[in-house]
């Protein structure tokens, strides 16, 4: 049985009803909200592990809600949207979502995505020595999920944290896109290059002194990504 608290934010009552019924039956605790504003209120007063967030809602809308949640929380977010254009996917991920599902979706698919999003990297023992890393004015503290660059501290979301610690555990080695996707999101993934692009960009904004000229998180074109650890 699954455990976790999920907040469904969608303006359509039937969708909320179906989600609540299905997710509750799978063992999740479910709360719901009709608008982004109401969802933000609930997130302030209650604790959740994951938000299912509709992109197209009256009021502040899904993207803005996502941004606002992200500005103060590292909670997992899956966006639900009608459009499946590349632009909308990237918009959603850029706003801070961890994943993206196109409406209408099949329930097993959504459940798999929820599991993948809530899924955490097994804490391998060799991560221990990486707990704290200080290089060139950048301080990465994996134990507290905090990054400090030039005195400015930011926290990593779960997926950002997983991606960074996976790369950090294999320094100076190019990791292929597929390996990264499957390690971080799960075995069903492998071709979603846009996920990596967006997440790497998000990480660069947090850990690189100059995100446009990455010093640590470098791209090996066509091959993958590499964490360059200056000795």
């Amino acid at each position: 049985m699954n455990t976790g608290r999920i907040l469904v934010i969608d303006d359509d009552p039937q969708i909320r009803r179906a989600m609540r019924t299905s997710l509750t039956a799978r063992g999740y605790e479910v709360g719901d909200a009709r608008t982004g504003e109401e969802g933000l209120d609930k997130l302030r007063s209650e604790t959740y592990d994951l938000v299912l967030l509709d992109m197209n809602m009256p009021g502040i809308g899904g993207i803005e809600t996502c941004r606002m949640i992200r500005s103060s929380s590292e909670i997992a977010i899956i966006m639900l949207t009608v459009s499946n254009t590349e632009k909308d996917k990237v918009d959603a991920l850029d706003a801070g979502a961890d994943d993206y599902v196109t409406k209408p979706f099949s329930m097993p698919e959504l459940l798999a995505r929820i599991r993948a999003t809530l899924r955490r990297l097994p804490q391998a023992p060799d991560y221990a020595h990486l707990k704290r890393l200080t290089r060139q004015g950048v301080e990465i503290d994996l134990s507290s999920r905090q990054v400090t660059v030039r005195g400015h501290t930011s926290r990593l979301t779960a997926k950002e944290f997983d991606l960074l610690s996976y790369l950090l555990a294999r320094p100076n080695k190019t990791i292929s896109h597929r390996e990264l996707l499957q390690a971080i999101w799960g075995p069903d993934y492998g071709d979603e290059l846009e996920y990596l692009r967006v997440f790497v960009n998000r990480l660069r904004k947090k850990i690189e002194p100059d995100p446009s000229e990455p010093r640590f998180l470098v791209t090996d074109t066509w091959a993958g990504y590499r964490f360059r650890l200056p000795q």
Partner: protein
Amino acid sequence: MASLVSSAGPGTHLIPKGLFRKSTHLIGRVVVALGLIAAITLICFRVIPVNATTVGFFYLVAILSIATASGLVESTIASVVAMLCFNYFFLPPIGTFTIADPQNWVALSAFLATSLAASQLSARAKRRTKEAIDRQNEMERLYSLSRALLLADTTRPIARQIVQQIAQTFEFSTVALYDRTTGEMYRTEVDDMSDIEAKLRDAAVRSSVYRDEESGLVVTAIRLGGEPIGSLAMKGAPLSDPALQSLLNLVAIGLERTLSQEAVNRAEVARRSEELKSTLLDAIAHEFKTPLTSIKAVTTDLLSAPSAELQPHQRELISIADEGADRLSKLVTEAIQLARIEGGKFQLSRAPHFPRSLVSAALRQMNSLTDGRKISASLQDDLPQVSADAELIQMVIAHLIDNALKYSPSGSPIEIGACVREQDVIICVVDQGKGIAEDEQSRIFDKFYRGSKEQALKGTGMGLAIAREIIRAHGEDIWVKSKPGKGSEFCFSLPIAPRSGGE
């Protein structure tokens, strides 16, 4: 006056009449001038006898007046006649043309020279004044034309207004304008225009100037930045060269201003209607897909239950609802795709892509919809990159695969291949279905067209139409090769992306 059109006659057939009128006027003025000389002679000889010097002065004053009032011809004739009268009536021996005193020879010559020179100067001054007035008139007219063009009503065809304004301002009897961009002809009146039309086209193409001194017709190109953008013909009033040039510049600027204004308007209208269409389509998609989402969530959740929990007939019934929801969802998606793509007014975001990655991305998209059918993609690794909108081309491949799945027996394989042909990469989807009769092959890409024997099959009838629109938007081609009973091969071409520099 540096007359551009020497004869100001209004028309070819009127010229003798005009000349006649002109010469009558001249004769009249000569008669008046001679009358004045005769009157002075009569008064000084008979009424108030005065000395020869005073008479000479009287004559000079009269000749100056004639030169100022009429012209050089009249004053020259008057000078000669006055000299003769002066000699005959006032210089001794009176009553003869002989001159006794050599001093009088000098006086007479001085008189003639003075009167001729004075006539000349006076006539020249008069001509200068007239020229200055003409120039001023032209300037005023050009100014009022430029003002009229600036204030032109943008809702009406500007070229027509230009023609009317020129005719009105410069009092031309005929004005015609040829707009090269639209190929249209605008003119004031229809008298004998066939000839002018040909000249207008010629002038616009060759950027030349045509002048007919006899009829007063001028046909000249309108240039903007050295390029002829049209031509203008005028008849009926003289116009100096500088004024003609200024007029042409004004017309060129007027035309260009409207053209750019029209282009901006058209783009704005297109943009707004695109925006509206896009918003509407998004709203429709949302309205349809929202209820479908809850239906799909319910049916798929139920179908995912372990088989023991559902009676077989219950599972069958839920499957029917589930498939119905899928079909409706697909219909909405494709109708919206088609509406967006149709008319070709959409932005392609082209980038270099490997054909292999386009095909595998399309296959991935369709993953759940292939019913476990065997689809083999055999694309070589060394195919060059193509310049294409990845998302749209994946859609094309997905539609072709979907089509192959629908129209071939469930056990038969589907193959995807690609090859290079000249500057293109050809991507083909091959099935082993029933094939398509030759007479149907051309219609198969039409919207809502389905093979005559295929009415029972599921499908929206939009997939191939969408595929064709997308490929056309890329400036490429899509086609089918098929023989009944031997399967079909759907192919499309994509341009090879130019190699980036530095290699």
